[in-house]
C-alpha cells in the first residue's frame, strides 16, 4: 500500500468508531485516495456480508420457561432437590466399579434395510451415562437397524439408534444427561469405513424415564456426502465432564482440569496442548466437545472415584496422587464396601508412583486408629517396597498389639515387613513364625523369610504344612513354589500324595527341579491317571520333561500318544528336541499336525535336524501369523540362512511398510543382519510415516539398538524420534542410547531427556543410560539429578555416578539424606570415586541402610568392591556382623586370603556362624581346604540355595568339581556328596547311549556325558569325598563315551 494512512483508521472509519475530528480528516482522505476508498468499501461490504451470513443460534424450546421455573425454585429458598435414587447398582465383586461410568455407544444405524437408497451406516458415536441403567430402543427412525435390542453388558451399554430414536432408561430418573459428539464411524455404500467427527448429541430426560436422543445428523444429501468424503480426520476421543470441577480435586487450579480430564477418561499424553504443572508438564490431547451434566455431585463423585483413581494411577504424574488420595480418603469414609474395595485396590496399584510427600499421608494412615486405613496404608507400603524409619516404628507398635483384637492390622504389618525385603525385618519375621501366632501371620512371615532366602522360613512352612489345614497348606505350597530351593526333594515327594490338588501340582512341579530320574515312574503314573486334575497332570509333565534323559524319550513318546492332546502338548514339545530319532519325530509330527497351538513351535524345534520340518517352515512362512514369524526365522537362521533371506526380502516387498507384519519381517532380517534391518527401518522413518508406523519402526529400532551398537546414524534417528513418542517408547529409546551411537551425539540427547522429560520413568532410563556414557556433561547432569525431588531419579543418578566412579561435591548433602537408599547410594558413589579409602560415610551408610532393600544393599557392595578395593575390609567387617545371613554370606566373598594377621580370626568367625551356608561359603572363599568345605557341607541341613550355588560355582578353589556336581547330580539333600548317586547318573547316561546311540540321543546326551566326564574326574580328584567311586565305572564310561563320539 503506497498510502501513508494507517489502514486500521480506515477500518475504524467504516465501523464508525473514530472521534468526530479524526473521522472528518480520514473521511476526506479516503474520498481522495483510491486505495483507501477501495479498502473502505471492501470493509463495508464485508460487514454486510457477515451479517447476511449470520444464522441465529438455536435455543431449545422452553428455555425461558425452564429458566423461570428454576428461578422460582431459587427464590423460593427451596433446599436441594430431593435426593434422587441411587444411580449406581453395583454388582457383586470387585469389577463392579468398572461399571461406574457406562459408555453409551450411540450408533447411528444403517438404513433399513442395510443397503437401501441412502446406504449409510453410522456407528460408534459415544457418550457417558450412568451405571446401573439399562436401555432399549423404543422407536426407530428410518435409519435404525431393524429391531436391534440394546446390548447390555457390565461396564457398558451399547445401543443402535439414530436421530429421533427414543431410548428408555430404566431404574433411573435423572433430570437430564448430555451425550457428546465425537468420533463416529461411517460406512459408505462401497462399504468403506471412515471415521469422522460429529457434533454434540444431547440426551434430555423428560420427567418420567425416557431419554430423547437428538442427533443433528445433516438431512441434506450433500452435507452427508461432505461428511463421507472427509475421511482423513484422525480419530478423536470423546467423553463427558461428569465430576463438577469444584469436587474433582482439592488441588491447584492448574491441576483440577487435568483431574477432570482423567475422570472423563479423555486425557491422552501425546500431542495436543501442554499444561504446565509444577516441574512437570501434562500433554493434553485434542478432544471433542464437553458437556456438563447437571446432577448430584455426591452421586457422581462416588461413581467416579474408582475411575478417577485408576486414571490417575495410569498417568504417573506428580501431584495427581494427592488428588487421588483426597478422593479416596472421602471414599473410604462414606461409600459402601464394594466401592471401597475397588478404591483400595486402585490405591495399592498406584502406591509405587506416589511422590514422597504424597506417601507421607500414608504414614499418617498407618498412625491412625482406623483399622481400614492402617491395613490399606500397610498394603500400599508393601506394594511400594519401601519402609521409612517412622513407618517401621509404627509397624512394630502394631505388632505389639493384642493378637486377637488387632489381627487385621497386625497381618497388614507383617505383610509389609515380608514384602519390603528390609534386611532388619528378618528377626521380627522369625519371631512371628513362632507357633503362638495365628497361622496366616506365620505364613506371611515365612513367605517373607523365604523371599530373602532365610532358612527359618522353610522351617515355619514345614510346620504350617503339618497343621492339616489344606487351604493354608495350599497357600504355603504356592509360596514355596516361588522359592524352590528351601525344601528338599524328599519333602516334595511326600507331598505328591497330598489330598490337595494344588499341593500335588506344586510338588510335581518342584520335583522337576529337585528330583531324580527315579521320580519318573511316579510322575508318569500321575500323568496317566485320567482322574487327576489337568493342572496336576500338566505340572507332572513339566517335571517329566526336566527329569527325563535321552534314554527316556521313546517311552515318553508312547506315553504322549495315550494322553489327551491338550495335556500332551508340553510333552510333545519336549520330545521335539529329540529330532534325531525318526521314531520320536514321527510321533511328534503326528501329535502336533492338527494342533495349531504347538505346531509352529514343534516345527521350529524339529527344524534343526529335520529337513522336512525346515521345508514346512519355509512353506508356511508366507502365511504364518505375525507372532510366529520371528520364532520361525530364528529356527531357520542357522540352518537355512539363504532361504530365510529370500523369504524376508519377498515378504518385505509384499507387505506395506510399517505394518505389524512388515515390522516382524524386519526383525527376522535382524537375526542375520541387524545393521541392514536398522537401515530398512531408518528408510521408512525418513519418509515421515503415519504415527502408528513411526512408533512401530522406532520401537524395533530401539530394541535392536539395545542389543548392539547400530551406529551414529541410527542414534540420530532414535533421538529425532523422541518428540512425539509415548513415554514407554521414549524410555526404550533412552535405554537404546546407552548402547547405540557415539558419546558426542548421544550424551546431549540423554541429558536433555533427563532434565526435561515429563515422565519419571523416561528420566530414570536416561539416567541409567548415562551411566554408560562417561563424559563431563554426563557427570554434570547426573550431579544435578541427584538432588531431584524425584526419588527414583536421584537413586538412578547416584547409581550411574557410582558406575562412572564419580561423586560430585553437590551430592555430599545426600550422605545425610532422610532416605536410607539415597544415603546408601550416595556413600557408594563416594566410595567408588575415592582413591583413598574413606570408611566412615560408607560404613555408616551401610549400617543405617537397613530400611533399604537387600537388592540395593548387595548391589552397592558389588559396586564398591569393584571400584575401590581399599574399602573391601570395611565392607567385609560391616557385612560380617550383619543380622541378615544373606549379607553375611556376601561377606564371605571378601574373606581374606592374604595370609595376614586377621585371616585366622575371620575364618574362625565364619566357622562359628549360626547358618551352615555362611560356614560353607566362609570356608570356600576363605581359602579353606576341600576337606573343610566338605565338613561344612556335611553339616548343611538342606538343599543348597541358588545363591550359594552361583557364588560357589564362581569360586576358584572349588571350580571344576562343584558345577559339575550341581548340574549332573540331581540328588538333593547335599548332606554329603553321594558317590552312589553319581554312579547312578553315569549309568543312566551310559544306558542312554546303549539304547539310542550318540546319533539318536543327540547333543544333549553328549553334553551330559561331558558333564559326567568332568564329574568323574572331579570325584577322583577329590577322592577324600567320594572314596567309593568305582574305577571300573570310570573306565567303562570313558570307553562308551569315546565310542559315542566316533
Amino acid at each position, binding site marked *: 500500500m503506497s498510502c501513508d494512512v494507517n489502514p486500521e483508521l480506515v477500518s475504524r472509519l467504516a465501523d464508525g468508531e473514530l472521534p468526530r475530528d479524526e473521522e472528518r480528516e480520514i473521511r476526506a482522505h479516503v474520498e481522495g485516495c483510491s486505495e483507501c476508498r477501495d479498502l473502505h468499501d471492501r470493509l463495508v461490504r*464485508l460487514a454486510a456480508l457477515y451479517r447476511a451470513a449470520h444464522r441465529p443460534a438455536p435455543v431449545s424450546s422452553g428455555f425461558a420457561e425452564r429458566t423461570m421455573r428454576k428461578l422460582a425454585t431459587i427464590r423460593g429458598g427451596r433446599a436441594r432437590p430431593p435426593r434422587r435414587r441411587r444411580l449406581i447398582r453395583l454388582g457383586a465383586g470387585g469389577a463392579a466399579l468398572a461399571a461406574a461410568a457406562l459408555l453409551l455407544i450411540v450408533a447411528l444405524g444403517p438404513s433399513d434395510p442395510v443397503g437401501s437408497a441412502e446406504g449409510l451406516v453410522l456407528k460408534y458415536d459415544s457418550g457417558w451415562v450412568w451405571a446401573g441403567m439399562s436401555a432399549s430402543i423404543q422407536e426407530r427412525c428410518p435409519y435404525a437397524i431393524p429391531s436391534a435390542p440394546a446390548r447390555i453388558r457390565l461396564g457398558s451399554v451399547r445401543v443402535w439408534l439414530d436421530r429421533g430414536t427414543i431410548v428408555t432408561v430404566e431404574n433411573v430418573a435423572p433430570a437430564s444427561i448430555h451425550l457428546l459428539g465425537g468420533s463416529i464411524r461411517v460406512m459408505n455404500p462401497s462399504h468403506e469405513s471412515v471415521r469422522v*467427527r460429529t*457434533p454434540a448429541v444431547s440426551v434430555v430426560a423428560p420427567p418420567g424415564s425416557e431419554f430423547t436422543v437428538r442427533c443433528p445428523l445433516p438431512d441434506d444429501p450433500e452435507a452427508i456426502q461432505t461428511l463421507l468424503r472427509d475421511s482423513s480426520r484422525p480419530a478423536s476421543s470423546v467423553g463427558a465432564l461428569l465430576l463438577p470441577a469444584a469436587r474433582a480435586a482439592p488441588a491447584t487450579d492448574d491441576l483440577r482440569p487435568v483431574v477432570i480430564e482423567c475422570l472423563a477418561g479423555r486425557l491422552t499424553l501425546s500431542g495436543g496442548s501442554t499444561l504446565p504443572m509444577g516441574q512437570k508438564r501434562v500433554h493434553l490431547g485434542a478432544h471433542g466437545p464437553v458437556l456438563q451434566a447437571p446432577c448430584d455431585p455426591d452421586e457422581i463423585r462416588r461413581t467416579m472415584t474408582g475411575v478417577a483413581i485408576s486414571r490417575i494411577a495410569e498417568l504417573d504424574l506428580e501431584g495427581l496422587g494427592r488428588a487421588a488420595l483426597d478422593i479416596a480418603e472421602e471414599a473410604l469414609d462414606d461409600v459402601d464396601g464394594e466401592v471401597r474395595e475397588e478404591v483400595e485396590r486402585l490405591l495399592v496399584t498406584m502406591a509405587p508412583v506416589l511422590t514422597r510427600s504424597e506417601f507421607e499421608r500414608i504414614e499418617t494412615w498407618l498412625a491412625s486408629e482406623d483399622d481400614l486405613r492402617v491395613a490399606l496404608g500397610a498394603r500400599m507400603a508393601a506394594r511400594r517396597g519401601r519402609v521409612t524409619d517412622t513407618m517401621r516404628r509404627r509397624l512394630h507398635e502394631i505388632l505389639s498389639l493384642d493378637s486377637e483384637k488387632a489381627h487385621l492390622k497386625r497381618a497388614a504389618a507383617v505383610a509389609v515387613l515380608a514384602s519390603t525385603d528390609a534386611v532388619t525385618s528378618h528377626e521380627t519375621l522369625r519371631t512371628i513364625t513362632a507357633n503362638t501366632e495365628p497361622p496366616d501371620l506365620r505364613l506371611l512371615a515365612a513367605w517373607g523369610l523365604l523371599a530373602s532366602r532365610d532358612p527359618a522360613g522353610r522351617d515355619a512352612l514345614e510346620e504350617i504344612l503339618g497343621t492339616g489345614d489344606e487351604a493354608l497348606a495350599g497357600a504355603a505350597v504356592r509360596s514355596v513354589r516361588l522359592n524352590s530351593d528351601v525344601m528338599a526333594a524328599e519333602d516334595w515327594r511326600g507331598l505328591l500324595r497330598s489330598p490337595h490338588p494344588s499341593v500335588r501340582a506344586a510338588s510335581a512341579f518342584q520335583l522337576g527341579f529337585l528330583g531324580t530320574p527315579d521320580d519318573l515312574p511316579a510322575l508318569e503314573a500321575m500323568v496317566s491317571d485320567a482322574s487327576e486334575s489337568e493342572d496336576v497332570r500338566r505340572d507332572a509333565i513339566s517335571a517329566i520333561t526336566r527329569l527325563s534323559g535321552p534314554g527316556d524319550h521313546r517311552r515318553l513318546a508312547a506315553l504322549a500318544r495315550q494322553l489327551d492332546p491338550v495335556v500332551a502338548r508340553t510333552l510333545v514339545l519336549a520330545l521335539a528336541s529329540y529330532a534325531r530319532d525318526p521314531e520320536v519325530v514321527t510321533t511328534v509330527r503326528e501329535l502336533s499336525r492338527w494342533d495349531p497351538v504347538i505346531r509352529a513351535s514343534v516345527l521350529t524345534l524339529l527344524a534343526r535336524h529335520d529337513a522336512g520340518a525346515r521345508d514346512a517352515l519355509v512353506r508356511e512362512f508366507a502365511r504364518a501369523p505375525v507372532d510366529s514369524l520371528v520364532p520361525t526365522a530364528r529356527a531357520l537362521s542357522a540352518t537355512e540362512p539363504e532361504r530365510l533371506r529370500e523369504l524376508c526380502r519377498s515378504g518385505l516387498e509384499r507387505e506395506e511398510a510399517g505394518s505389524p507384519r512388515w515390522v516382524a519381517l524386519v526383525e527376522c532380517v535382524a537375526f542375520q543382519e541387524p545393521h541392514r534391518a536398522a537401515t530398512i527401518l531408518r528408510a521408512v522413518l525418513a519418509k515421515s510415516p503415519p504415527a502408528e508406523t513411526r512408533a512401530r519402526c522406532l520401537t524395533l529400532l530401539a530394541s535392536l539398538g539395545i542389543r548392539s551398537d547400530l551406529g551414529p546414524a541410527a542414534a540420530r534417528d532414535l533421538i529425532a524420534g523422541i518428540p512425539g513418542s509415548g513415554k514407554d517408547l521414549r524410555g526404550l529409546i533412552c535405554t537404546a542410547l546407552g548402547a547405540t551411537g557415539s558419546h558426542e551425539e548421544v550424551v546431549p540427547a540423554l541429558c536433555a531427556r533427563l532434565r526435561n522429560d515429563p515422565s519419571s520413568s523416561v528420566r530414570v532410563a536416561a539416567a541409567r543410560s548415562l551411566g554408560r556414557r562417561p563424559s563431563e556433561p554426563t557427570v554434570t547432569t547426573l550431579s544435578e539429578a541427584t538432588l531431584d525431588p524425584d526419588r527414583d531419579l536421584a537413586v538412578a543418578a547416584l547409581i550411574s555416578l557410582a558406575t562412572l566412579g564419580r561423586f560430585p561435591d553437590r551430592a555430599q548433602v545426600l550422605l545425610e539424606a532422610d532416605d536410607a537408599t539415597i544415603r546408601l547410594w550416595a556413600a557408594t558413589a563416594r566410595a567408588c570415586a575415592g582413591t583413598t579409602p574413606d570408611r566412615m560415610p560408607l560404613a555408616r551408610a551401610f549400617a543405617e541402610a537397613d530400611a533399604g532393600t537387600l537388592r540395593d544393599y548387595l548391589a552397592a557392595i558389588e559396586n564398591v568392591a569393584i571400584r575401590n578395593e581399599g574399602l573391601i575390609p570395611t565392607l567385609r567387617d560391616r557385612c560380617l556382623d550383619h543380622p541378615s545371613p544373606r549379607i553375611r554370606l556376601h561377606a564371605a566373598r571378601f574373606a581374606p586370603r592374604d595370609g595376614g594377621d586377621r585371616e585366622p580370626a575371620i575364618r574362625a568367625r565364619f566357622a562359628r556362624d549360626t547358618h551352615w551356608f555362611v560356614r560353607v561359603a566362609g570356608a570356600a572363599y576363605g581359602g579353606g581346604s576341600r576337606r573343610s568345605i566338605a565338613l561344612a557341607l556335611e553339616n548343611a541341613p538342606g538343599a543348597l540355595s541358588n545363591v550359594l550355588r552361583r557364588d560357589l560355582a564362581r569360586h576358584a578353589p572349588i571350580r571344576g568339581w562343584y558345577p559339575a556336581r550341581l548340574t549332573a547330580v540331581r540328588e538333593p539333600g547335599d548332606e554329603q556328596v553321594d558317590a552312589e548317586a553319581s554312579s547312578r547318573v553315569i549309568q543312566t547316561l551310559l544306558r542312554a547311549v546303549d539304547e539310542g546311540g550318540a546319533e539318536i540321543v543327540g547333543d544333549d546326551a553328549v553334553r551330559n556325558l561331558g558333564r559326567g566326564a568332568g564329574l568323574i574326574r572331579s570325584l577322583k580328584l577329590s577322592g577324600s569325598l567320594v572314596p567309593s567311586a568305582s574305577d571300573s565305572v570310570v573306565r567303562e564310561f570313558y570307553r562308551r563315551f569315546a565310542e559315542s563320539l566316533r
Partner: protein
Amino acid sequence: MSQPDEQLVTGFLSGDDRCFEELIRRYQEPLMRLTTRITGDAATAEDAVQEVFLAAACSLESLERPEKLRSWLFRIAHRKGTLLMKRTRRGPPTMSYSEHPELEPTLSAPRATRHESPIRNRLRRILSTLAGQDRALLDLRFIDGFTCADISMISGEKPSTVRQRIWRLKRDLLDRLEGPEGGNA
C-alpha cells in the same frame, strides 16, 4: 412495540416475573451465540446462559444503570463462558467445528446452504475455521453492534487490543475471501 430494557428491569424488580421472562426471550439467542462461540458446545452454552440469567435475576437490583443491561448481560455471559471453557480445559470450538462447518450447531437448516450465494457460503467456511473467541469478537461487533469500548468492557480486554484484534480479523477475512478458491478457506 416492545418495551425498552429499562422498563422490563423496573417491572421485574416490582415483582412482575413476566418482564424477566421477556428479557430472557430477548437475549437468549445472542447470549447463546456468544457462549457457544466461547465454549464451543451448544449444550454447555445453554447451561451457561441459564446461569447468566439466574445470576442476573439475583443481582439485578445492584444494576445502577438499567440502560446498560444488554452489555451487562453480555459481560456476565462472556465471563461465564470463559470460565467454563477454562474449567473444562478444552480448546476453542475450531477444534471440532472448523473441520465440519456444515455441522456447526448454529446452522439450523443445513438444507438451505444449497440456495445461498457462493460468496456467503465461502465466508461461512472461512468463519468456521476461526477460533471461537475471534468469532465471538466479530459477532459482538457486526451482529450485536457493540462498539470497541463496549466489547472491551464485555471481554475485559483493553480497547486498543480489541481494536487491533478486530482489524486483524477483518484484514484476514478480506484476504481469504478475495484470495484464490481452495485456499485456507
